[in-house]
């Protein structure tokens, strides 16, 4: 910002600030038609969600949720937070491939994936605040007057916060480009590798940490889903959960924001999807093997004959095994519809798995089951709608789907900057 205000050594505060203000105001205005079916429906959902949240904060969680003394965590934690964060795993996997392994092929999708990951954390992990009974105390574990370091949730909370910062730093060059702050951009760009390394480390820990939350719910989670390996299973599945989300979201984004997609991404998009499909298939076979070992070690044979056993097999075979095979065949034959179908099946499988651990299989022995109220579902949909709005706003303005390809060596970066200047 500062360099904009200084011109030839003489600060010209007024006009620059005014110009910046007009620029921001112009950017804040919505673009395109306002009265689309999507806008109308999501606006209604968000409005209704807002009303429901007012009731929730005025009268307590019981006023709009079906949570009980027996089921303290429902849809908002099980789906919004635990499943949402698994879906956001694509950011750490793609940044690993691009910045650590140097697979330049995936560079064009880095920004959109990181943006998606960042927004997913802001909104879905942010949805945690709606579920907290006493959200005003949320700063307690952060500011240090009560460090519950023996708590897995303490780790998860800190990592959510730090990872959001890391992802913002990873995305920030796009913001700087949008604002035209070239020197700031160079500083931020220099932070990328550090943020990526830090972000991957944090992701490994909190993706597993979300599973570790249930380690003390021993006896409450159905034995087919409970094992000491939940944290590892959660990390491994977050790899293909995140990448399937990248495939799914990428396919939609590619159509909806076609005008914003850069040449290189346009040219390589299909190739990227095929590459991701192969990685997904690999990660899923690793996951299946791990599940098999856990199954045998846990001596779970006896449960297979029950209804829970059938439900478990549906999840493992129908929503991991089948999509894994589809990914592989889609990759071999280069058929994108097969890959997209596999991604959708995988995402459903992740929803199943996370909900089986956190909600469906939780207190499986109880006669009375927790079923979310329609109001819990509306609030969840409102959170998703709001996230899509922000995503759309950013993609339509910032260089997310099209940006100057920058060689990772310092040399290349300078060259591009000169060209841009």
């Amino acid at each position, binding site marked *: 910002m500062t360099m904009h205000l200084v011109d030839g050594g003489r600060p010209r505060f007024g006009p620059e600030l005014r110009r910046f203000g007009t620029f921001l105001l112009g950017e804040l205005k919505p673009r395109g038609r306002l009265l689309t079916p999507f806008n109308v429906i999501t606006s209604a959902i968000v409005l209704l969600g807002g009303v429901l949240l007012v009731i929730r*904060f005025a*009268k*307590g*969680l*019981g*006023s709009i949720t079906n*949570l*009980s*003394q*027996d089921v*303290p*965590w429902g849809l908002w934690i099980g789906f919004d937070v635990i499943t949402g964060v698994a879906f956001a795993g694509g950011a750490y996997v793609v940044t*690993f491939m691009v*910045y*650590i*392994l*140097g697979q330049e092929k995936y560079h064009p999708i880095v920004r959109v994936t990181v943006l998606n990951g960042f927004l997913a954390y802001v909104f879905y992990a942010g949805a*945690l605040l709606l*579920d*907290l*009974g*006493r*959200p005003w*105390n*949320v700063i*307690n*574990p952060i500011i240090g007057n*009560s*460090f*519950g370091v*023996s*708590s*897995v*949730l*303490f*780790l998860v*909370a800190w990592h959510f916060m730090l990872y959001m910062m890391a992802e913002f730093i990873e995305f920030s060059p796009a913001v700087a480009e949008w604002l035209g702050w070239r020197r700031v951009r160079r500083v931020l760009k220099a932070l990328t*590798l550090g943020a990526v*390394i*830090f972000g*991957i*480390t944090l992701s*490994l*820990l909190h993706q*597993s*940490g979300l599973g*570790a*939350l*249930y*380690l*003390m*719910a*021993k*006896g*409450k989670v159905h034995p087919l889903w409970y094992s*000491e390996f939940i*944290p590892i299973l959660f990390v491994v599945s977050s790899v293909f959960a995140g990448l399937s989300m990248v495939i799914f979201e990428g396919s939609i984004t590619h159509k909806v924001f076609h005008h914003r997609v850069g040449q290189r991404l346009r040219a390589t998009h299909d190739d990227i999807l095929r590459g991701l499909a192969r990685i997904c298939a690999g990660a899923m076979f690793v996951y299946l093997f791990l599940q098999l070992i856990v199954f045998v070690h846990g001596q779970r044979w006896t449960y297979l004959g029950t209804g829970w056993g059938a439900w478990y097999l549906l999840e493992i075979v129908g929503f991991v095994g089948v999509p894994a095979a589809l990914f592989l065949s889609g990759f071999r034959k280069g058929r994108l519809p097969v890959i997209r179908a596999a991604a959708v099946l995988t995402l459903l499988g992740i929803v199943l798995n996370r909900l089986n651990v956190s909600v469906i299989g939780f207190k499986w022995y109880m006669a009375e089951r927790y079923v979310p109220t329609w109001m819990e579902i509306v609030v969840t949909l409102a959170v998703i709608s709001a996230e899509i709005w922000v995503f759309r706003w950013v993609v339509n303005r910032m260089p997310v789907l099209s940006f100057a390809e920058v*060689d*990772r*060596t310092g040399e290349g970066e300078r060259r591009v900057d000169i060209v841009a200047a």
Partner: protein
Amino acid sequence: MKRRDLLKTMCAAGGVSLVGGRLGAEERPPTAPLADRVGVLVDTTKCLGCRMCEFACATANDLPQPEASIDRSVERQTSPTQWTVVNRYETAKGPVTAKRQCMHCLQPACASACLTKAMYKEPEGPVRWRESKCMGCRFCMVSCPFDAPKFQYDSPVPKIQKCVMCWERLEQGERPACVANCPAGALQFGRRSDLLDEGRRRIALEPEKYVHHIYGEREVGGTSWLYLASVPFEQLGFPADVGETPFPVYTREFLYGVPLVLTLAPPLLLALSRASRARQIAEGEEEEER
């Protein structure tokens, strides 16, 4: 001073005298030896099922009085407004009544689950909750093997509610309200080690009357509340599958792994990134030479 009173109570209740020097609260280590902690021994063979403890609990803790007439065939649970309940169970040895409340584990899952240390164990034994710290995440409820913590779902300023072993009464040198008001002498307050001795003595004196098991001696690593019964405890609604491992141990391995990953992953990733970059530059130069 208050701790001193509490310890006096412990002496009186347990009938054990302490050396004066050990009474100073300041000199005590932050975690008292397990044997020093207070607890309650519940002898369900003496319980009449009169529910006096329920009413005494409500009075002592400013809770609404429990309903006078209840359906005995329904197993009731504790709630935000009722921290203890007496249930009746039909068993092979006839009806047995048993009081339930927070077990005050020696290594509480709820306290280790709490990320703000709102839930914590007093060195003397009781597990308490602090309103100013709690953020209402309810992870304590997910973790507790006995489902003791209850949440006020109907309040915009909700609290976690459960038995606190009448901490304020203990500080004033009194016994918990339920113990003090039990007309049948089914409840005995004292030091846990003494209560275990007493429990074993009763079982040894009347081996036919009791099952040879003190519930809470080893369950989840030991609890401050201990139970004697004439029938196996699962017939009295006690979870039989909680094991003898303290619950915080289940997350210990994961938490041990955290510093390892946090310190080892970044240098490995950095090394990997350097290696791949060096290769890229080399490849780039080769291309330029061609």
